[in-house]
């Protein structure tokens, strides 16, 4: 089957074609790139919701609960769930579906697991492109669940319209809440597992710490200094369903409006993140072109032997790439 028909069939609701296309996109094949040419102009309508947080905080269960809530309203939902690849063997265990299998046979829920394949930052390199394919295939709400993160994997905030950070009640004391990193990029912080003791207190602490300084924001922004986001703090239990409808409603309030794509911050950031990722990949591919193997090896050896510094080496290689359009 030709790539165009694969793209057309995905767009027209053929789930098998969508799944095949996602594989092409994930593997960065020529067929995948060609299909994106057709589909990208059709995307840009969906609300991309990034869901991130520590391993075991309940991201997958939360995504499953939110999906269930959206399905009650008849809305199709797509999920991209990322788990880490082994840096040693390249293998991966993709286990997020376990929590979402309740939706497995619903044709209007499409769940795709992705291994990070060496990409750091909590996502896989093809995550945004995969989301665009789902978007063009008619999914208006797309959850992107990151790998279980630590304190600083904030890439998801650059590619999602709305970023949800899931916390468990055992998150630690108030100092954890004022550390830089993940919590600064959240639009919504959800204290999950509200059925457990300590959840209310954790939410109160987060609220107190994350909203502090809000009054200084306007002056800072006026002076051109960047300010962290002031997230909403919510309580929920993905297990019992408590707070889930409220969370979905809060997400919907943040959905981008159809016209806002032209210049809104999230869209520009996403465009930049995508293009820099692809540029890096293309530069690397050219660098590894057999025609340049000798020059590359020589430069690497020179750096290893401390004859030249790595910055000079990188400039040399870049200059070499600039000379032609091979690769």
């Amino acid at each position, binding site marked *: 089957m030709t790539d165009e028909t694969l793209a057309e069939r995905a767009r027209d609701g053929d789930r098998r074609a969508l*799944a095949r296309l996602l*594989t092409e996109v994930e593997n*960065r094949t020529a067929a995948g790139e060609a299909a994106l040419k057709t589909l990208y102009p059709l995307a840009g309508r969906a609300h991309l919701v990034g869901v991130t947080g520590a391993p075991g905080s309940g991201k997958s269960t939360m995504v499953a609960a939110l999906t269930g809530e959206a399905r009650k309203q008849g809305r199709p939902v797509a999920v991209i769930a990322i788990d880490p690849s082994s840096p040693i063997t390249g293998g991966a265990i993709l286990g997020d579906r376990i929590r979402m299998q309740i939706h497995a046979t619903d044709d209007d829920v499409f769940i*795709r697991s992705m*291994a990070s394949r060496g990409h750091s930052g909590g996502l896989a390199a093809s995550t945004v492109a995969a989301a665009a394919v789902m978007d063009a295939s008619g999914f208006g709400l797309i959850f992107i669940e990151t790998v279980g993160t630590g304190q600083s994997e904030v890439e998801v905030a650059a590619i999602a319209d709305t970023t949800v950070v899931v916390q468990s009640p055992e998150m630690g004391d108030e100092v954890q809440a004022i550390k830089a990193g993940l919590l600064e990029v959240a639009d919504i912080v959800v204290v999950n597992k509200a059925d457990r003791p300590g959840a209310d207190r954790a939410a109160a602490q987060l609220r107190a710490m994350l909203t502090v300084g809000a009054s200084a924001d306007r002056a800072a922004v006026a002076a051109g200094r960047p300010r962290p986001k002031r997230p909403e703090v919510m309580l929920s239990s993905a297990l019992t369903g408590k707070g889930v409808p409220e969370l979905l409603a809060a997400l919907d309030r943040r959905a981008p409006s159809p016209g806002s794509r032209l210049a809104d911050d999230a869209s520009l950031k996403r465009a930049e993140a995508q293009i820099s990722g692809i540029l890096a990949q293309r530069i690397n591919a050219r660098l590894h072109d057999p025609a340049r193997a000798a020059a590359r090896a020589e430069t690497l050896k020179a750096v290893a032997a401390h004859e030249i510094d790595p910055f000079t080496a990188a400039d040399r290689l870049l200059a070499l790439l600039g000379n032609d359009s091979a690769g």
Partner: protein
Amino acid sequence: MTDASARPIKVLIAKPGLDGHDRGAKVLARGLRDEGFEVIYTGLRQTPEMVVSAALQEDVDVVGLSILSGAHMTLLPKITAGLHERGMDDVLVTAGGIIPDDDIPQLEQAGVARVFGPGTTIREVAEYIRANVKSRGA
């Protein structure tokens, strides 16, 4: 551009039916991870429809079914039939668990490519998959 042959093989490990013993499935999943495969595990008590749907959405190369309950003659053919119905004849289907030798020919006829008995090593499974996974034309 990634070389197609270099991309990891995607395997769905699924436990159809009602038995609650998934240590074997988890050990296999972990072992195949160490062999460089991308392994999707969907947990216990999956219906044939859930397994087929997960295989479709994940576009896997291999479906490995672990079953200890004795219901394999009912459940496994339902899964292979479901895969066939959704156009996934290029997916390699294997099974493992407690499956009597006498049942194997019938399962093979139903589209299960290989049944692994107790005592099979992870290396054997991995080598079988590498040798038999079907190459994909886009």
